[in-house]
């Protein structure tokens, strides 16, 4: 068995059991975010379970993808409380903010969510959509840019594993563009986007 890649420094990297939710509207690529994070997690030699809302409800309205990462085999596969909530729509933020732990992370797209719910958790409001368009010219790369930001701000998975995961999951021919978006997200500075907790 090869050595696990070194974790990026960050708060979530040190937790033995991490529960993550990506929430947004259908078409924003929220499910893919969860799957990529889960693939990156397995590359970090962590135990991982990824679940999601399925079927018609995933196509219309809201969409969510959950990932549990742990250092030991995972028994209960679903979310019992959130360490990290990534919201790309106002509805997702409203719906799931209540499940966030006090020491959790709340990262949201400030282009979509103008009045985020008040909470104790570490909050980061980042204009993912705008940054994605600036970086790649394509709104479709918003989810990958946001993933980069999530990894950079929380260290939930290692950068090396995340890059490999992105490359293995995005459509052929878009690798370069998505890597650019990912790196842009990774380069974001926490102090620049952190919101005061309430």
């Amino acid at each position, binding site marked *: 068995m090869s050595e696990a890649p070194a974790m990026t420094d960050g708060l979530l990297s040190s937790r033995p059991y991490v529960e993550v939710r990506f929430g947004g509207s259908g078409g924003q690529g929220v499910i893919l975010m969860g799957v990529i994070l889960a693939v990156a997690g397995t590359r970090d030699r*962590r135990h*991982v379970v990824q679940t999601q809302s*399925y*079927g018609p*409800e995933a196509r219309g309205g809201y969409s969510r993808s959950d990932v549990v990462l742990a250092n030991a085999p*995972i*028994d209960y*596969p679903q979310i019992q409380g959130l360490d990290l909530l990534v919201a790309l729509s106002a509805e997702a933020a409203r719906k799931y903010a209540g499940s966030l732990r006090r020491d959790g992370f709340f990262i949201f797209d400030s282009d979509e969510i103008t009045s985020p719910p008040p909470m104790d958790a570490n909050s980061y409001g980042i204009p993912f959509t705008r940054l994605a368009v600036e970086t790649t010219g394509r709104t479709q790369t918003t989810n990958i840019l946001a993933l980069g930001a999530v990894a950079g701000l929380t260290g939930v998975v290692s950068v090396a594993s995340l890059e490999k995961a992105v490359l293995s999951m995005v459509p052929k021919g878009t690798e370069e563009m998505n890597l650019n978006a990912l790196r842009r997200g990774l380069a974001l500075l926490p102090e620049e986007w952190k919101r005061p907790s309430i």
Partner: protein
Amino acid sequence: MELWYTHLMRETIDQDSLLVQGNRACALGALDAGVRFFAGYPITPSSEIMEVMARELPAVGGVFMQMEDEIASICACIGASLTGEISMTATSGPGFSLMQEAIGYAIMAEAPTVIVNVMRMGPSTGRPTTPSQGDVMQARWGTHGDHPAIVLAASNVADMYRLTIAAVRFAQRFRMPVIVLADEIVGHMRESFSPEIAGRYRLTSGDFDFTETYIHPEMVREVHPPHELGTLIHPHVTGLIHDETGFPTNDPKKSEQFLRELHDKVVHHRGELCLYDVKNVGKGRVAVVAYGSCARSARAALKLAEQEGIPVEVLHLYTLFPLPVEIIQELARRVEFILIPELNLGQYAREVRRLAENWTTVVSMGRIDGNLITPRDIVDRLAELVGKYESA
């Protein structure tokens, strides 16, 4: 490389570890177990099994058929099985209902095949993308007549792989259909699945010869020889009650003897068929018996309950039928009560109660709102009940 896990290993070529969907793991298990004929019909939440088979089976020279409905699917599987092929189909509740008549045929005609039912909420169309364990008794008693059943229940992605292999093995060995129950959560979740896990399962299944249809020497008296259409034996296969010649009989004595044989071959080999896992064995004041997704909740609850001072034993059943009679009765002798969390209104709890009520109290904990039972739910219920019942 061993034949039986080549497909899993192929998935891991560029990775040390693997993230695999439950339904995909089921298909990989089938391929590694030697399934070379799959016929199915699309239905949520099992369709991915069929999609993987459609892509992978031709590569190993197997036959994939998308049939016109689930009835045709299982009938095609039985047809292929009668020629000696190892066959499988996968479906969900509504399709499983359609298959019931043919499942009875496969039992009567002693045609091995595997039916995977990724359970969804019902009855009827219900909630197709929602997990449930509502088909447990249908898996046992869905087809008409007095018949035996082998039913396995998968709780995670690794189970989807290895229990599918076990199902193929049991089907071939006992010459009857074997049902694998999963639920929407297990079918659709992606979970890390490392080669070490595959290696571990190899230890439990390494002695299977999946490529060969065989009858264990001890079983000759109980299991009819395999049908071999297209050989010199060119048998007659029928769903009518038949005697050792394969032809129908109305003789009361022979009829009873035949039906008893069908049952006995399962019941007499309960020890081999009942796959289970007990956590905290002998150390619990109370017990939780669970299977499928709920077994995961129960395992998580065990740790939580310990922290809160409730010693619990968890019996995780991988084989639901034949009933693990001895295992449940032993457990019943040593605990105050048995709690059974299920995503139905107590289907399996009724069976456990029947077996355990002489020694202990059996409490059903059903949930039918489409959500899983959480570890917290289980611990809260245990806390409510602890001390209420006398130990045997």
